[in-house]
């Protein structure tokens, strides 16, 4: 069974890839976790780790996404667009964070970090 966070992470990864200027989505989890996750995936112990880190608690989403951006578009502009699209998705009611006691639209604002890890 897929956790709601994983579903959101998958949706956000797809969303990011549609944003003009986003050239890649990289793992946002700490690298040791990525490597261990990769090994466990190969041994079929766990599902592949998500590129976008998503967690939720007490009615709040926390998202970290690491992206590579096209050098032909200002990185700041692409990063800002990525952040806005993520916030839009999380506040659209498409999913509710854990611990939400009210409709998704009334939950706390999501905490979103977009990290530009590569330009070029």
């Amino acid at each position, binding site marked *: 069974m897929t956790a709601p966070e994983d579903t959101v992470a998958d949706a956000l990864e797809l969303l990011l890839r549609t944003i003009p200027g986003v050239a890649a989505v990289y793992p946002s989890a700490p690298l040791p976790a990525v490597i261990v996750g990769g090994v466990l995936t190969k041994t079929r112990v766990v599902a592949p780790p998500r590129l976008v880190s998503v967690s939720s608690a007490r009615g709040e989403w926390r998202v970290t996404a690491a992206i590579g951006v096209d050098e032909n578009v*200002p990185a700041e502009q692409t990063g800002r667009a990525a952040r806005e699209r993520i916030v839009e998705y999380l506040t659209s009611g498409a999913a509710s964070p854990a611990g939400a006691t009210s409709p998704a639209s009334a939950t706390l604002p999501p905490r979103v970090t*977009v990290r530009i890890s590569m330009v070029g």
Partner: protein
Amino acid sequence: MTPTDDTSPPSGDDLRTLPDRQLTNDELAGHTIDELIDYYDAGLMPPNDSIDTSAGCQLALADIAHLRQLTMHLVDDDSAAQPPVDEGWITSILSHIGAQVEAGRDVPVFGAEVDSRVVITEGALRAIVRAAGDRVDGVFVGRCRFAGDLTELGAPIEVEVEASMLWGQNLMQTAELVRENIVADVRRHTLLNVVAVNVVVQDVRRPSHVDEGGDGREGNDGGPEGSDGGRSRGRGGREGNDGGGPEGGGDVSGVGGTGGAER
């Protein structure tokens, strides 16, 4: 200015070894520079997910690609004499690549909002700077450092780059082009307040047939007419030919000048 890394030239003959560590680190997703070079030379085939999905590996591959181009340029210039391309010089650059791809600090590029932010890694920022410098013909930017509080949006930042240049270029003019490119690209991609860009000409590569011919211009630091333009000042304190011939490069510095740009 606070150095962000130690990239003194590698000792010994191990081409892929830094002075104090192997070129394998977390930022390269567990890969070595050797493996990345092989992957690049194989045309990025067969696809390797762990390399293709690692920002650090992608930064290193971009540098390797540029180094390959510059090496070809040197070989072309030397086609008559067919000299060996200086492996020590290449080694030094490779050691820089390994150190420079580290992600480093998160540099804010937008928003001081409590609930969200957009940042660029210091490694990606270095990639912008180096790519901007590398766009100038015959220039390869090696080490890149930042002085100032990168973590505070709007804080004044100084950029210092060390560059290798090909023989036959006017150092001052070339350094100015490097500065202009860096300022323009950093401003285009970020909101950083770059107040100065310092270009240190670390090395001047010249074809060996010039060296062998004995041009009689001792003390020449690489200017096309045996001049450094009268503006740059030697910093290495070394007499004689510091042009960085294939056997002598690596420890020669000339300050290409300091340029500032208030935002």
